[in-house]
């Protein structure tokens, strides 16, 4: 017997299955077509319908039914063209006639695996709950026992150190005429150390980001350094750097990342003899908080001419970096040899440090680094870190929260008396709810020397739509409606490089004021309060115990 499916639309999904449902208002729509034209996934389309209506003319009611042809905007029920909730339609609508609405009851994940292909996306973990970082409070307020400082009057030094720091007992110092003298003749290696701003822009590659986005960040960073005197640094991500920048004096504001695909490194190595400045540091990427155990991935649709040339690869091929550095066998080899090679390339003048994803095994890596006098830091990227492309399951279910990971590592260093020697950089979910300075300060007080941000700066500086309700998250497709994570000129021309740079500067200046507003009442101004855990409290006994901080309620 022929199934009835086709007759009663049973083969179709209902809109109730979809994560966002379009609310379109017939009475307001003027049928300009902007929304349907701009939708990055073609989730809405114009349609023509026949409508039956009842009318009555004349002095006495004589209802008759009639039909008319109407144009409507309709949401499709094709899972490949699901509405991502980005809201670009709302943005362009002149009459506020359309907007997507989040559907709590959606069954999106049940269906988004057509052809046996699991759901892939960009963004970060879809968990809108309040993170531990946002639950931490600063409760040690200096008052009469110790005057609070004035954030507007006292001099503040919000700076940190990036690089391996010698233990005081090993400093090559001697005394002459009652003064300390640096003894250079002894041959003691003095590792390179940079004084930087404690909030840095994390690794996002040229390629993952559009040209105006990456340039905007870079311009903002250069402005902060050159004009505002804030030594903010930014990491290149894996994928090299624009050749002109490699040869410019601005290179010193950038951390160059090397990852398992070595993309862009042909160009970097060739530029080495022409560099007029050393980079701020070299980051060796071993893992990423958003997708632990996965390598990098730049989808073919984003590998256009510019990207292909910077990375030294053909156009329109998927660029996947292996999950591990394939040429290295063990942690000792992988870490020690890479650090050694990179240090050597720049004559041991540049700090070299690894970045790993948050994991229970972070302390093992840390202890390996603690024994390696060339390791300049350890960057740990927690589970709330973002990415341009990953499997949803990796993003949502894999990884380790950053708070306890950083705390464990810091306390491990404290046990060894090495907490000042190996700076910890915390990343992953900083500013998730917009509280950039507060999250950064909390991590610093838990033991981080610096924090790294990615998703936050895309949201704050370029209005990225993405959120923890899976809104937009199209970064992997190259169809970013904001022009942030796309290589399509039609899309990225929507983004104004200067505006991005301007916002980067505004964000950092505002965060700087907020950091001072946190540190001042706590009586700290001269040195970053790294590990000042007595300043923190949380309204959760278990977390307080785990992080070894106060419980307050």
């Amino acid at each position, binding site marked *: 017997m022929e199934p009835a499916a086709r007759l009663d639309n049973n083969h179709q999904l209902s809109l109730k299955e979809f994560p966002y449902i379009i609310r379109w208002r017939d009475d307001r729509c003027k049928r300009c077509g902007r929304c349907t034209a701009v939708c990055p996934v073609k989730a809405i389309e114009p349609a023509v319908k026949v409508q039956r209506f009842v009318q009555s003319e004349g002095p006495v009611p004589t209802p008759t039914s009639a039909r008319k042809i109407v144009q409507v905007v309709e949401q499709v029920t094709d899972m490949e063209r699901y509405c991502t909730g980005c809201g670009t339609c709302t943005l362009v609508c002149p009459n506020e006639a359309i907007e997507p609405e989040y559907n709590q009851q959606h069954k999106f994940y049940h269906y988004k695996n057509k052809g046996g292909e699991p759901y892939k996306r960009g963004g970060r973990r879809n968990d809108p709950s309040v993170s531990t970082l946002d639950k931490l409070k600063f409760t040690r307020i200096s008052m009469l026992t110790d005057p609070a400082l004035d954030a507007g009057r006292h001099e503040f030094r919000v700076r940190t150190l990036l690089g391996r*720091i010698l233990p*005081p007992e090993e400093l090559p*110092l001697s005394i002459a005429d009652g*003064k*300390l003298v640096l003894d250079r003749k002894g041959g003691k290696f003095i590792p390179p150390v940079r004084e930087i701003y404690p909030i840095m822009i994390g690794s996002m590659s040229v390629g993952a980001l559009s040209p105006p986005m990456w340039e905007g960040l870079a311009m903002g960073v250069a402005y902060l350094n050159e004009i505002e005197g804030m030594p903010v640094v930014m990491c290149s991500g894996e994928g090299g750097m624009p050749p002109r920048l490699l040869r410019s004096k601005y290179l010193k504001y950038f951390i160059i990342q090397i990852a398992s695909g070595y993309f862009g490194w042909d160009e970097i190595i060739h530029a080495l003899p022409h560099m007029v400045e050393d980079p701020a540091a070299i980051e060796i990427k071993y893992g990423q908080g958003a997708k632990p155990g996965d390598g990098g991935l730049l989808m073919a649709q984003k590998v256009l001419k510019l990207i292909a040339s910077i990375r030294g690869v053909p156009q329109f091929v998927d660029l996947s970096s292996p999950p591990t550095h394939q040429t290295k066998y063990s942690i000792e080899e992988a870490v020690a040899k890479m650090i050694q090679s990179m240090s050597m390339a720049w004559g041991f003048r540049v700090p070299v440090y690894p970045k790993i994803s948050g994991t229970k095994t972070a302390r093992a890596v840390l202890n390996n680094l603690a024994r390696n006098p060339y390791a300049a830091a350890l960057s740990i990227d927690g589970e709330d870190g973002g990415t341009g492309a990953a499997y949803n399951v990796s993003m949502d279910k894999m990884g380790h929260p950053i708070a306890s990971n950083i705390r464990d590592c810091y306390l491990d260093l404290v046990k060894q008396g090495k907490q000042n020697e190996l700076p910890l950089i915390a990343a992953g979910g900083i500013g998730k709810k917009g509280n950039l300075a507060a999250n950064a300060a909390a991590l610093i007080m838990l033991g981080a020397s610096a924090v790294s941000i990615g998703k936050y700066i895309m949201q704050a500086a370029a209005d990225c739509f993405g959120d923890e309700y899976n809104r937009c998250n199209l970064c992997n497709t190259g169809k970013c409606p904001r022009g942030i994570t796309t290589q399509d000129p039609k899309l990225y021309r929507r983004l104004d490089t200067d505006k991005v740079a301007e916002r980067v500067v505004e964000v950092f200046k505002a965060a700087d004021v907020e950091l001072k507003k946190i540190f001042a009442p*706590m009586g*700290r101004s*001269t*040195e970053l309060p790294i590990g000042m*855990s007595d300043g923190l409290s949380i309204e959760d006994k278990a977390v307080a115990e785990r992080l070894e901080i106060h419980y307050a309620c």
Partner: protein
Amino acid sequence: MCRLAAVTSRDYISPMEPVLALETMKEGHDGSGLGITMRDLGGEFEKLKEYPILSGICTRNGGRIIDDYMDKLGFELLHAWAPKIRKTKGIVSREFYFAKVYDYPKSYRDNPMHEKEDLLMNTRIALRRIGESDESIFAFSFYPDVITLKEVGDPLEVAEFFGLDRDGLKAKIVFAQGRQNTNYAIYLYACHPFFIQGFCSMTNGENTAFVPIREFLMGRGFPGYTGYNSDSEVFTHILHYTVRQLGFPLHYYKDVITPLKISEIEQRKDGDALRIMKQSLRPLCIDGPNMVIGFTPDGTCFMLHDSKKLRPGVVGGVKGKFALMSEECGVDSAVPKRDKQKDIFPMKYDMVIISPQAKEVKVWNQLHG
């Protein structure tokens, strides 16, 4: 807030002098305790200068434990002193206050001072640990020519309780702290001044950077960096660490606890050394606001504070006698006949250093090195 009074002198002075100076600053402390450390002792201790003095408080049982323990280590008791207690209303007297002078164990007598210092410190810490839980022993200092007394109560009344006004006890350097009780239950190990291996300091102000500093010091693997019942104890230990352990000249203490900015360091002749020193000692930046008065094993006294200058201090005096105080009225009390015009109010880059025997006072400027 606490009030600090220190006097350094060429001639022996009565420990009452700084206590009376504290009395003039009474509006600034709540009279919840007195700590007093004396060095270069006169009177009955004058002829015992090379022998270590264990000073503290004990119960009868604690006293027996001390005697047995010292005996077991080979220390020979040479002289015992106890304050002439005058019962005072409001001061709860403990069983025994003591200062006992010992000769070193025979095996140590010819050892270098460094090793002797370690023995003394380890012995003091061991006694402290033995008697800490039941409060049967408080051991404040164990070092040649140094006595420390501490008790809860109004500083002047405590001094009279100890009979310091009647005893012939004299010293050339006397540090006294009138305590502000920040934690209502007062614990004697939390009272300034703090002492370790010839280094002593007392401090004004709360130490907001206490936890990272404590963790850093405890990570140095030095057994003396312990205790920390007060956040100010770390100032003494940083002083000890900087000068004794790292071997830096005294004025680098200022560079350690209140480091310059990088742009300022570049102006210093020893900028290269200072830069890496600042990096390596980053967690020891006190971040203030604090004022610190201290002395070192050679009898040098100093005063400094952080750039915020919210806990000021003043140094004044004449050749042969200088007072280092929280307030000008304290200096007036200790050295009334002096040229007030020459009083020194150290600014953020200054470290006032007074040489042993109060010979001269100089202001070392951190900016100029």
